[in-house]
């Protein structure tokens, strides 16, 4: 069924507004965004083949919710990882500045 394909695209656009931190330069921002798109497309490609026959509305809803929920969890994990990385980087920068002073 093609319902899956249509609704997976929703997950794809969530990411657009993710990164707006001034700390990161434009380039790194773009790289991160590309990475996010790649993760999403890869996930969509993987899960589209996994779905077997959708017979009833119940199964369709279950599959959809399960898959979207999983990609959201993966994305949130990556997101928090990124925040931690940013925090670590800025802390290291501060330490370096203090050393030079």
């Amino acid at each position, binding site marked *: 069924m093609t319902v899956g394909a249509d609704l997976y695209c929703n997950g794809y656009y969530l990411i657009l507004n*993710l990164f707006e*931190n001034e700390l990161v330069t434009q380039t790194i921002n773009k790289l991160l965004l590309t990475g996010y798109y790649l993760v999403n497309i890869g996930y969509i490609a993987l899960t589209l083949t996994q779905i077997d026959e959708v017979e*009833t509305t*119940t199964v369709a*809803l279950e599959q959809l*919710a399960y898959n979207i*929920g999983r990609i*959201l*969890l993966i994305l949130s994990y990556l*997101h928090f990882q990124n925040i931690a990385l940013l925090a670590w980087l800025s802390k290291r920068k501060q330490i370096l500045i203090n050393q030079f002073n």
Partner: protein
Amino acid sequence: MTDLIVKTYIAYLPVAILLTFVVARIFFKNSKIFMLDIFSGREEIAMSTNKLFETGFYLLSLGFALFRMKINKSNFITIDFEMVEGVRTRIETLVYGKQELFEVLSSKVGVLAVALGFMVFFLMYMLFRGKKKSAEGRDRKEELQRIQEI
């Protein structure tokens, strides 16, 4: 008539989404002040950090809510034994009514609410820790300045 299970899902989804949005709105409206304090008044970075955490919170909680939406139907299976052509055979039938589904729905919403509560308290702990850390850093900076002046 659509299936009762579908009706349960349709009831569960708006409740979960509304719960997430209300909690996130309240929490992140109030966390702005803490963020401003942590980043010692630098408004841009505080707001953007707040926004990043908000996005992460939405992702995490909606993902969790959708991930465990599926109702485990093995609870509703009743097993009967019948004699079919002289052979005792096992017949499984799905039996569920409004009561069972309502119980399942409430347990799902309850677990989601408890998870959201844990998340909010964890974030509050993080905020308080960050506040303490930044206050310590400010104190150290002041001390250094005083030493340099001497």
